[in-house]
């Protein structure tokens, strides 16, 4: 059952919903004030841990745990950095928060800064999101005027400054260490880890990098209390707590973003939120959370006959009928990612879909390390040849080889982000690739749209 909630989205459909007055009329900034005036940072981190907020950026790392890694440095300041470089194909959730509820971000920044001992928060916004930046700047201005951020927020001697930093339109800058390099004015290339940002982050100082949605939900966590927040989720038992934004796009009738308690199934998202597949076609496959997550087919089922297996309750069920969470998705052989589901309808071409994604990854690879720089481009050129009808069976065989050799051999997760969808498409749709090689299909007939 879908459980709609309205914490982040409560004002989404109201006029001028981004204004401070509206935000405050629904309890805005009361949590920041309460935290700063009556709580210790340990108490805040404790609540954050209890809330089981899994990072909303795709990796699903527990937010409270990440905050607890921050140790004050003897001479250096600490920083909070928000990753709003939302650029993954099929992902469009953070943008709605920035545009429609920017004050939740600012309030979240105040609380998170306090929790990790930072006085400055940088919001790294993807360059193309001009409205998002304008709304954030507006919100920061309003909050400053009211004295909610600045030298002494709410009269408390704990300075909090929030800055918006514009990216330059590179997908790789969504990788947290590439983001930090970009923030520092350097070339947007991922750094070697360790050291992790909590030790050496922005400008060489201890830094927490959180997804923007992760921080935006923080005021809700504090308002409800960590445990109560976590229990809103259908996956509380999987330590995957609370509510989050889900998105549906692709070949569905009503694409969009919706706030739900964690744990809807793919079928619920596609049919209840998305209104079903365009032209009432069958589902070819779904990308569960952004283009880097391996595709799922409706015919796939959960195989967990062992009663001790955490997924045993779903044994034999279609993966489209299993609650979608960070850990459950992992057991399905994919990733939850940003949980913006992209649906491909039957009749569209998975080879063309893979070609589309590979174009993206080839274009966005920073080129720092060998397997990603060369492998991504090789994948694209191979698929391109296959689509053009010049491919051979050797080319088809090469695809899984190239992707397998990129897997895990790169500096950052971009390599896996390219290899995983490639392996997904070639592993699950090989016969489509072979059809092009055998000349049974032509590129001119391939479609990615439902007429």
């Amino acid at each position, binding site marked *: 059952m879908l459980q709609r909630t309205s914490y982040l989205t409560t004002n989404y459909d109201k006029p001028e919903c981004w204004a401070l007055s509206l935000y405050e009329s629904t309890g805005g900034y009361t949590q920041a004030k309460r935290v700063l005036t009556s709580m210790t940072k340990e108490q805040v981190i404790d609540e954050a841990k209890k809330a089981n907020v899994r990072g909303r950026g795709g990796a699903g790392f527990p937010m409270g745990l990440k905050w607890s890694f921050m140790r004050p440095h003897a001479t250096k300041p600490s920083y909070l950095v928000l990753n709003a470089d939302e650029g993954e194909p099929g992902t469009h959730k953070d943008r709605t928060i920035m545009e429609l509820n920017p004050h939740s971000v600012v309030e979240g920044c105040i609380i998170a800064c306090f929790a990790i001992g930072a006085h400055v928060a940088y919001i790294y916004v993807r360059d193309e999101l001009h409205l998002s930046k304008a709304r954030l700047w507006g919100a920061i201005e309003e909050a400053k005027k009211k004295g909610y951020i600045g030298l002494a927020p709410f009269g408390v001697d704990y300075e909090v400054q929030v800055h918006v930093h514009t990216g330059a339109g*590179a997908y*790789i800058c969504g990788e947290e260490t590439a983001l930090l390099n970009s923030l520092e004015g350097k*070339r947007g290339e991922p750094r*070697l880890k360790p050291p992790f940002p909590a030790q050496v982050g922005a400008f060489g100082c201890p830094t927490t990098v959180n997804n923007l949605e992760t921080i935006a939900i923080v005021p809700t966590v504090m308002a409800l209390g960590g445990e109560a927040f976590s229990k809103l989720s259908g996956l509380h038992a999987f330590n995957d707590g609370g509510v989050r934004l889900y998105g549906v796009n692709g070949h569905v009738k009503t694409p969009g973003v919706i706030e739900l308690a964690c744990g809807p199934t793919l079928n619920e998202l596609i049919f209840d939120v998305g209104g079903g597949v365009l032209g009432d076609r069958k589902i070819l496959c779904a990308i569960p959370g952004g283009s880097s997550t391996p595709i799922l087919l409706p015919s796939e089922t959960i195989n967990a006959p062992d009663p001790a297996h955490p997924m045993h309750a779903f044994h034999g069920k279609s993966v489209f009928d299993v609650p979608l969470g960070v850990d459950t998705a992992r057991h399905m*052989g994919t990733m939850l990612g940003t949980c913006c589901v992209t649906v491909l309808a039957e009749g569209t071409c998975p080879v063309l879909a893979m070609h589309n994604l590979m174009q993206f990854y*080839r*274009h*966005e*690879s*920073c*080129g*720092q*390390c*060998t*397997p990603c*720089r*060369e*492998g*991504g*481009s*090789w994948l694209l*050129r*191979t698929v391109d*040849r296959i689509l053009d009808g010049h491919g051979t069976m*050797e080319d088809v*065989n*090469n695809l*899984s*080889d190239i*992707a*397998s*050799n990129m*897997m*895990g*051999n*790169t*500096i950052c997760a971009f390599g*896996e982000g390219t*290899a995983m969808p490639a*392996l997904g498409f*070639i*592993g699950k749709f*090989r016969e489509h690739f072979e059809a092009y090689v055998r000349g049974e299909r032509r590129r001119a007939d391939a479609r990615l749209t439902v007429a």
Partner: protein
Amino acid sequence: MPTFKLDDREITFNPGETIIAAARTAGQEIPHYCWHPGLSVAANCRMCLVEIEPAPGQRAMMLDVLDWDATLGDYVPRRKPKLQPSCQIVVTEGMVVRSNSSPHVTEARKSVQEFLLLNHPVDCPICDQAGECKLQDYWMEHGQFGKRMHDEPVHKPKAVEFGPTIVYDAERCVMCTRCIRFMDEVAKDPVLEMRERGNLNEIMVAPGRELTGHYTFMVDHVCPVGALTTKDFRFKSRVWFLKTHDSICQGCATGCNTHLDVDPRENSAYRLRPRENMAVNKFWMCDEGMMTYRATSEGRTVDHLVSGQVVTSDTALKEVQARFGGTPPNEIGILLSSQASLEDNWALLELARTHIGTKHVFFTGAANGYADDILIHADKNSNRNGVKLLAPHAKDLHELIQSVAGGVVTRLIVLANDADDAAVAAKLAGRLDTTIYLSSASNPFVSEGRGIVFPICGWAEASGTYINQHGTAQVAKKALEPRGSARPGWEVISKIAAALGFTTGWTKLKEVRGKLPVTMSTTVAE
């Protein structure tokens, strides 16, 4: 010392060392392109990936990949361990590392090698790096496969002039960033950077700049492939025709350890390269130093001259007898050279003190010049400390000129190799009745044509010892056969001694070296 296990070997390491560095010290190379022991870690080539056994109680991180099984007609899922870059991972006690013994590592190396060659032009026949190229070496070791990509490779700028000394070929480049890091970290001039993304990446010089300075040649030497070449060596020789000899740079008092590459077929030098010595020059050298190889062939003195006329060795020696015979010993002076080897200086000093019996010992050398705090020393003499050690009370040039002007010294035996020395000697030449001049280089004194000139071997033609700024005695080995009539200075001095009626008792290098007041392990205080 703590140990770790690499394949089947137990290897000791210094705490804080990376796997690749510890393995290198132990004599086991882990293949790599981007790692350089003198530069920061980039970990971008991914050639040095190794498998590290998880610590007890921890599970290895596994990755899901697919293999196509042609007989099954289906994909077979496979799990492989996540490999780690050995240039980045710091060794810990008891760590178990698999390099050559892991099939996953073998597979990864082969694939990295394949990725790197994907868009490489494979223009080895016209590439200067061929024969000393990591891409070639590792392809023989880890590749030996045919090309699987049949598309046109990516084309990028070729023969880009980075500056007056360096040419860049972006198609050959493997983007290891060693050149960028060298200019940034060692040369302290971050003039190189990378532009574009993905496989369109290329190295560039900062806008408005050229690759200039005193360390531009080094970018060629840190480049593991043929992307960066020096204009000086470009298209001059194939490296397999060259024979490498250990030498010492004569450019300044730093005494950088070098490799001198010579073509034995034509007895000429082609290149001077840095040789690793952590105590002296680490892995580096300056441009000026590397260009000194030219002095082995250019501007040489190769004939005996008497009053400007080319003569035989015998004639020259007879002239010595004629002009020096009967001179009171105390009227003879000798001029030592801060640029000549310890052997030559010692021989001349021995002749003066033991045989002739004069106390007029002077020394000279090149004037001070440019210095930095990287390698280049202001003292442009390779052996000033050597002369100081042999003759601590030798008088300087000013006193020599006074002695000559006052008629105290009427005969002079001069050892000099450098034009600066020669200019000094030229000043004196007009005032001296007779001078014996031992030189490897042509200079104003030689052309003045007043004295007796004996051509001697330059630093590349005879083994010689030089004491650098820190008092370290180092040997430049013989790399070339002497040109023309040149012979080692100490040998010529022995003959001059004989002409003057003395028997020196040395005829071999070993005999001279055995009498030197230093051994190669000697460090002499400055």
